[in-house]
Structures are given as C-alpha cells and as structure tokens.
C-alpha cells in the first residue's frame, strides 16, 4: 500500500466525529447528516443501517471526499489512519481514493462504465495508484483479482464488457476493482441490494473472506438487518441524518433500545420464524431533511411516544446516551425503560418463540 494513510497503532482506522453534511438547495438547506460519530478498527466491520434518506450513503461518501465542494457543506472530522479528510486537498484525496480507502457501490451495472471492458476498468484503477507498473503487469493483476473474487476463466472474462456479465459476476468484478490496491478500509454501499438471495449470500461470504485475508476495516451500508446480523461487528442505526442507536451487533440486534430499531427488526421477514410472528411495517414516511420534525425526528412515527411524560418527544432532541447495557451501547430515546417495553410489547409480536427462553 502506498500513499499518505498508514494505520496508527491502537487507534481506530476510521474515526468520524461530529460529521455534519448540508446541501444548500433552492428550497432551503438540506441537512443530510447531523453530528454523526463512529469508528472502525482494522479487521472489524461496521454495519450502518437505515432507510433511504437516513444519511448513510451521504456520510460514507464524505469519507472519500466524493461530495461536490460547491454544493456540499461538510463540518466535523473524518480521520483515516490519523489523516484528517475533511478539507483535504483534492490531490491528496485522490491519493486516498481507491487506494487506502476503496468504495464499492450497489447496482454494479450502473456503477461500471458500460463502454469499457471489465479488464480496462480494473487496469485503470490499478495504474492510477501504481504509475510505475506496466500495462502488462496491471492486466496480470486484474486477472489475478478477478480470479480471487471467484470469476471463472478470468483471463477470458477480463476482455468482456459489463453487460456480458451476470449480476453477481458484475458485483464480484466491482469488488475486485475495489480491492485491487489492497485498501485498508473498504466502504461497501449496499453491495448486495440488486442481487438475488443466493448470490447475496455468496457476495457477503466473499467480502468476509477478503476482509479476513487483508485484515481491512469494512463499513457496510445496508437497509437489510439480515445482512448486518451476518457480517457486522458493530451496528450503527441512522434515522433522519442522525445516529439513533450504536453498539455491538449482538447488543443492538438482541437488546435494541430505540423504537426505530424495533421497527426495523419487526419489518424483517424471516422464513424460519414462528408462524405466530407478525411482520409489522413502520407507519408513516421518512422525515423531510429540509424541515425535520422538532424534538426526536422519529416521534411522528413512534408507537411508544405516549409512554414518555409530557411532550418531551416532540420538543426535545434526545441525547445519544448509554442505556442499560453499558457504555458501548448508546441510543437516542427518551423512554425510561426501553428494555422492559421491548420484552413486554415488541418481542412477543415479532418472535413469540423467543419469549419463553430464559435470557
């Protein structure tokens, strides 16, 4: 790995602090991300979950400085291996992109250039960070990466166009392109969204294998809690541009403390579940980022707001504070005893078979 970013011992590889991203538009200021903080260490995976417009993609694009400088106002701090990314010069950002930090996108058909051969696109990604390498070396590297991500006959497929690949193969090629420069941090923006379930599982396995092999930090953006449960070490739940719950995967998924996370859990279909389990959608629509609701952004859709005294939910934004599970599990909610409500009201609805088990 070349370039400016080198891992610092004992520090998280990616540390985001108080990140705020705003877009001035003709209709007003869109506050896409507000005061977001998280960190990822090498070898670990952070799952960022939330619905469309919750700010998950916007925040991770900021890590690579991909927002247009003229249209985005970014404040706060993003440190990659100790290097501050916010306000970094375009040429230094370029050194980082695709090199120490790589990003893979959803819908590889749209994300790969339709006019260039897969091989050429991989070679281009390699050569830009290895200017001294020859074209022959770059091509050999591209074939090697295609082979590594499980594309059959890579020496032949390297000369094909994206439209000649199947959906799963395209996503594999996309991953190969992301990993071609051995990045220390991989940001995967809904990498399995456009794929069917079997291929989805293969791609997730592949990502996990590669992560183990390269010991890289991974940020996995998804709206699918099933995916998170499978691969993430930590989970960050976002709503309306803010973190609403953040903790280890196990804690957030088994002892969620915020009604929005409950809603997400309730709306995941599970074919292995008890037939008495219900799938409950979250009522209402995602909040407007132009004029976000006062107080807690989730209060207009929250089924539990009447359990909070007064009109606290609609007037005061709850702080992101530790709940009953210790310092590492934080949530943004006014509910006094969320664990009791979850056990008494939510769990019996979504997973009746779990209620009897001793916890």
């Amino acid at each position, binding site marked *: 790995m070349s370039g400016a970013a080198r891992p610092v011992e004992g520090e998280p590889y990616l540390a985001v602090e108080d990140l705020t991203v705003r877009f001035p538009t003709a209709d007003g200021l869109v506050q896409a991300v507000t005061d977001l903080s998280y960190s990822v260490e090498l070898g670990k995976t952070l799952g960022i979950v939330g619905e469309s417009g919750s700010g998950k993609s916007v925040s991770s694009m900021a890590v690579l400085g*991909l927002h247009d400088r003229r249209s985005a106002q970014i404040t706060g701090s993003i440190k990659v291996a100790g290097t501050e990314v916010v306000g970094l010069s375009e040429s230094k950002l*370029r050194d980082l992109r*695709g090199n120490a930090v790589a990003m893979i*996108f959803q819908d590889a058909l749209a*994300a790969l*250039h*339709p006019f260039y051969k897969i091989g050429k696109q991989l070679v281009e990604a390699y050569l830009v960070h290895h200017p001294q390498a020859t074209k022959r070396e770059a091509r050999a590297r591209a074939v090697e990466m295609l082979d590594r991500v499980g594309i059959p006959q890579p020496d032949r497929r390297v000369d094909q166009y994206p*439209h000649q690949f199947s959906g799963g193969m395209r996503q594999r090629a996309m991953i190969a392109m992301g990993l071609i420069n051995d990045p220390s941090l991989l940001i995967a923006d809904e990498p399995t969204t456009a794929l069917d379930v079997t291929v989805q599982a293969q791609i997730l396995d592949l990502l996990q294998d590669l992560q183990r092999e390269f010991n890289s930090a991974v940020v996995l953006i998804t709206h699918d809690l099933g995916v998170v449960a499978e691969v993430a070490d930590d989970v960050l739940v976002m709503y309306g541009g803010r973190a609403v719950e953040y903790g280890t995967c196990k804690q957030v998924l088994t002892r969620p403390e915020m009604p929005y996370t409950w809603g997400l859990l309730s709306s995941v279909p599970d074919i292995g579940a008890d037939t008495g389990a219900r799938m409950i959608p979250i009522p209402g629509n995602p909040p407007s980022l132009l004029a976000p609701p006062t107080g807690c952004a989730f209060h207009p859709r929250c089924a539990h707001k009447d359990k909070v005294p007064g009109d606290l939910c609609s007037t005061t934004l709850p702080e992101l504070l530790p709940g009953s599970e210790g310092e590492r599990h934080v949530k943004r909610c006014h509910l006094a005893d969320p664990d009791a409500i979850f056990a008494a009201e939510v769990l019996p609805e979504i997973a009746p078979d779990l209620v009897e088990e001793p916890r």
Partner: protein
Amino acid sequence: MFAFLVKRILSGFLTIMLVSMIVYALFWYGPKSPALQLCVQETNGRCGPTSPRLADYEERLGYNNPVYEEYGKWVKGLVIDRTIMLGKTPYECPAPCLGLSFRDKTLVSEQLKDKFPVTVSLAVGAASLYLLIGVTVGALAARRRGTLADKLLVSSTLVFSSIPYYLVALLSFLLLTLNTSIFPDVAYTPLLDNPAKWASGLLLVWLVMGIFGATSYTRYSRGAMVESLSEDYVRTAKAKGLSARTVVVKHALRSALVPVVTIFGLDFAFLLSGTVFTEQIFDLEGIGKWGLDATYIQDLPVVQATSLVLAVAVVVANIVVDIIYSFLDPRVRLS
C-alpha cells in the same frame, strides 16, 4: 457487421430511388410544364403555356411519352452512356449521366463535379467547428453547472441562435469583408491548387457557419454531459482516484458523445446537400445555390441531381452514424 452493411446499403438504395422518383413525379405532374424553360429560352420568350411551340418542345423532350419510360431512361443513364436530344441537336452524355442542364446545355455531372467540392469544403470546415466549439463549451458548462459562467453561456447561446442565420451571415459579410478588410478575399480556391488560399478564403464562412451551428451543439452536449456526469459510473471513476480530467473526458464525455453523434450525422448530411443562405450570401458556387437557381427556372435535370445528392448524403450519414455508434458503445452490436 457485413450483413448489417449489406442490408443498410440495399435499403439505402431503395430510399434514394424513391426520392428520385418523387422529385421526377413532382415535376412531371406539376403545374408548369418542365419543357417551358427551354422553349422560352430558345424562342426568345415567344413561348407560353398554351402556345403550340411548347407542345412541340414537350414532344421533343419526351414529355409525351409515359412517365415510367422517361424515368427509366434517366435511371439507365446513370450506368450507361446515352444520347439526349435537346432541340434538334443530339448531345452525348457519358455515364453516370444526370442529363443536361436546360439553362446552358452542359452536362449536369460535370457541373456537379465543380460545385460539390465547394459545398464539401464548407461542410467539413463548419462541421468541425460545430463539434470543436459546441462540445468543448457544452462540456465546460456542464462541469460548472449552475454557476454564473454556465448561466451566461446557456443564455447567450439561446440569444445567439434566436437571431436569424441569414442576418448573421449577411452582417458578417458586410462588416468583415465589404466595409473593413478583416477577411478580404472570401472566395473558393480548390484545396489542391492552393491549400493556404483555400483555407483563408473560406475562413470567415466557416466561422460564421460554425459558431452559429455550434450554439445548438453547446446545448445538446451540455445536456448530455450533465446527465452523464451524474451517472453512477462517473462516481465510481472518481472513487477510484482518477484525476478530474480523466473522469470528465474518458468517463463522462465518452458517453455524452453518443447522442451528439446522432444529431451530427444528420446535420452533416444536410450541410453536404448545400448551404443555401451561406452560398448565396458569400457568393460561393456550391450545391445549395446551384439547386436554388435551378428550381427558379424549372431546370429538372439539375434539381433531380441536387436532390439525389441530398438523398445519398442522408443515407450515407445514417449508415456511418450507425457504424460509429458500434465503436462508441459496445452494447450496440451491428447485426
């Protein structure tokens, strides 16, 4: 690719045949006898629509024969030498024979050889400027989308293209050639005779045509660029760490060119079939002026020839555009 070409060339031939038939029929069944011009010319005006002399001319020019017979003779002349009777004298017309001009009884094919290079010179110069100025400015505006520079550019192209073209051409000729001597020698010199003179003589014309035509290309390519700059694959290119220049030129512009090429192909074909205003104003003897003059005096062989040029140009341009397409976009397979 080969099968595609054969198919397209065959259907192109059909199109060209149809166009020539329609033009032929329009004159044949039109309100004025096509023989009138020659009759008036040779009798010093003592020939009217009802005079027996006209009937005489019609008989001699073959307008009393069935239309398909005469059209057949015309088509045959394209491949085999023929002899044409104009008045009492026979004229040899070697293949490809496009007939004789009624006006001066010269071979239409010979005239075409003189006029076509003028029009081609104009078309090539103007079209190069369309692309060069139009695509460059459009791409730059798209990159600066929403800024003052972009807004100024877009509105100025709109203002500029709302001025009638003949006014622009006329004013530039008056101001830059006649009143001042910034471009003193607007004239056509064959390229092979004197390349420097060829270029200097046509420079003003190219600039006027090119800048005027480029305004619409600016808008096309700006639109196409704005669209392709927001594509996912452009974001991917940026995320790979490529330089802004590579992202814009190799990734965004490459796909933005596809729609521009389509429009360009047709525009170039129309340029090849003559630029009437330009040739008239700058007094250049090209296809456009030739065709226009011939239409005034019902010079059927010349009109037939100019419409043939247009049909061929459009058909060829379309085939070329399709071929370029397959090079630009690998998803387009010619078969």
